[in-house]
């Protein structure tokens, strides 16, 4: 089939009108007398009728519309979607990519729980030693408070080397830091009405520490960031957040179970802790369950209430005097300034 075409040879910006002949049988295209094998010709994406040569990157031939249809039968159009997508089709390649992504995420998700127990605690401590040093002067030292807290922690299974401290903060929270330090915010203590509740909280955080949850979370976060951050951009960051949130809810349940076991072992009633969750539930907005990092307080309280054993003999973990000293540990320590920021 013969016709006209416009040729840009890549050396000059001036195009030439040339005669072309599609030699179907010979598998070649004659352009102004020059024979070009059809195998080196490629369609230019989004520019129907325009062809390039694999061996000459700047060479462009734009065919007369009448010839385009004939050419399209010989040289396939390029959708620009990528070779795999073109070969497999959109649906099948999407399914394949999805399966591959799921497998990759699964690996990153499970590896840290295997790696974490082998990360030395000293390494964890080293990574956050700046933050730990900053924490040190903020620890409350009101008279008798630390001794009471140490006794409470020992009762619920603190091991040698574990450290539980209180700092002043308006947040109602407790955290297990990398390196095994447990920090209670004094606002939390002031909102509790029994030392047994504090025991439930400390036992929960000790669960995180002893199971190396922090190292696991840090390893996992790092893995997601390294792999997804390299190629993914913003949407990958959101995936990372969601996955690590989901992870932390499972881990919170595990730490709660550890807490109940420790309370039972120490002969401390789980009912006050159940009541604490019931109080928190009243303050919570329902419906954000999936996006929250902890399971709902209702669910957690119910589990503690169910752990109550009518046949057991429970006694308070601290006497009145020691509990008062603990609650007032920051109040009795005049050096403490308000911690305003969420520094961790």
């Amino acid at each position, binding site marked *: 089939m013969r016709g006209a075409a*416009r040729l840009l040879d890549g050396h000059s910006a001036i195009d030439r009108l040339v005669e072309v002949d599609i030699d179907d049988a010979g598998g070649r295209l004659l352009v102004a007398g020059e024979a070009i094998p059809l195998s080196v010709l490629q369609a230019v994406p*989004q520019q129907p009728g325009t062809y390039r040569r694999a061996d000459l*990157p700047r060479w462009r031939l734009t065919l007369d519309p009448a010839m385009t249809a004939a050419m399209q039968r010989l040289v396939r159009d390029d959708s620009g979607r990528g070779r795999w*997508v073109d070969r497999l089709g959109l649906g099948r390649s*999407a399914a394949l*990519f999805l399966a591959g992504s799921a497998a990759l995420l699964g690996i990153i998700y499970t590896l840290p729980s295997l790696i974490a127990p082998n990360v030395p605690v000293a390494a964890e401590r080293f990574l956050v030693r700046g933050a730990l040093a900053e924490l040190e002067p903020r620890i409350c030292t009101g008279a008798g408070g630390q001794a009471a807290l140490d006794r409470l922690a020992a009762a619920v299974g603190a091991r040698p080397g574990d450290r539980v401290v209180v700092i002043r903060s308006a947040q109602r929270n407790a955290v297990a830091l990398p390196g095994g330090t447990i920090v209670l915010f004094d606002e939390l203590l002031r909102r509790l009405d029994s030392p047994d509740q504090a025991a439930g909280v400390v036992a929960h955080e000790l669960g995180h520490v002893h199971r190396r949850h922090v190292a696991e979370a840090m390893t996992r976060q790092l893995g997601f960031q390294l792999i997804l951050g390299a190629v993914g*951009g913003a949407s*990958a960051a959101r995936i990372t957040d969601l996955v690590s949130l989901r992870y932390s809810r499972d881990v919170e349940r595990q730490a709660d179970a550890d807490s109940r076991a420790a309370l039972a072992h120490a002969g401390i009633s789980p009912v006050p802790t159940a009541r604490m969750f019931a109080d928190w539930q009243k303050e919570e907005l329902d419906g954000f369950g999936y996006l929250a990092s902890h399971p709902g307080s209702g669910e957690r309280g119910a589990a503690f209430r169910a752990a109550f054993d009518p046949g057991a003999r429970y006694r308070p973990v601290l006497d009145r005097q020691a509990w008062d000293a603990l609650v007032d540990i920051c109040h009795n320590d005049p050096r403490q300034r308000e911690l305003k920021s969420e520094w961790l």
Partner: protein
Amino acid sequence: MTDWAEERQAPISFDGDWRSYLPIALTNLALTIVTLGIYRAWATTRSRQYLCARTRFFGERLEWIGTARELLVANILVALLLIMLVFGNQLVIEAVDGERSAAGGALAAMTAPAFLLLYGLARFRAIRYRLSRIMWRGITGGSREAGWTYAALYAFGLTVAALTLWLIVPLVLPALWRRRWEAMQYGDWAVSVEAHHRSLWRWWLPLYSLFLLIPLGPILFVTSSGNSVGAHLPLIVLVLFSIMALFVVPPLFFARYIRAMLERMEWNNVRFGFNARTRDWVWLYLRMLLLVVGTLGIGSVMLEFMRWRFIVEHLELEGAPDLLHLGPSGLRDPRTGEGLLDALDIGAF
């Protein structure tokens, strides 16, 4: 495809429409999600292929000849580089005993200028890469330079501008614009820029005084009346300053700056111009915002299309390129894409 009768059209035009772009954008989004972002390189390439193919420059369509693979490689290389820089820096700081020691503090203080340097480099290389991949009449462009000098000037210029509380912005920005565009060429023709800062001062000085004076209002009010809001004064002033610095001054200045810069650019007998005014830009960004919010984020796939169309529709070209004296650039093309730009999330304009 181009036919000869179209030469008398507008020197630059865009004939894409959202109906034909949307299927591309949506498949791009879907594939990017299921590949955890890896497909983004292909998505970008495909989108640019469309946008270029629908743009005519003096009657002839542009063509995006960049490949997805080179973008992916660039992204991975740059991610590795940035991870090494950030982690390496952190480890060294830790090793020399924290930020409070002199050596550690100095290293920590160097992080910001280092990023400024990379930022400048990214801008330069992005322009160089894009010019080398946008083909017109078999011709592409680029730069002989690698961009390090520009990056150094960029870091220096912005630091000095910051030290003068941004007063000398009309001096620094045009100088940088001129430096980066004069390093560029398309085909064997260099781009020439007459970027002038004099005309910008007329706009900048009133804006700058406004920027300083408006937050001054509450200060005077509080100090003269001894009002009880005095305790919140620093916060109020900070908020006002931020609003001015982010939402008032840049849009008012930006449109004029871009116009002033492009009006003095020339390439191969073609004089550039740009006719978007502040209200056009505001309207563009407002539409983008409404689209993204109204579609719960999915509309963001159309932003690149909207931005491209906006720029093409507001570009003004005068004269005609001399095709007889236009040859290949003779440059060695950059082998990888604009990874740094993506990693630092910046535009190339």
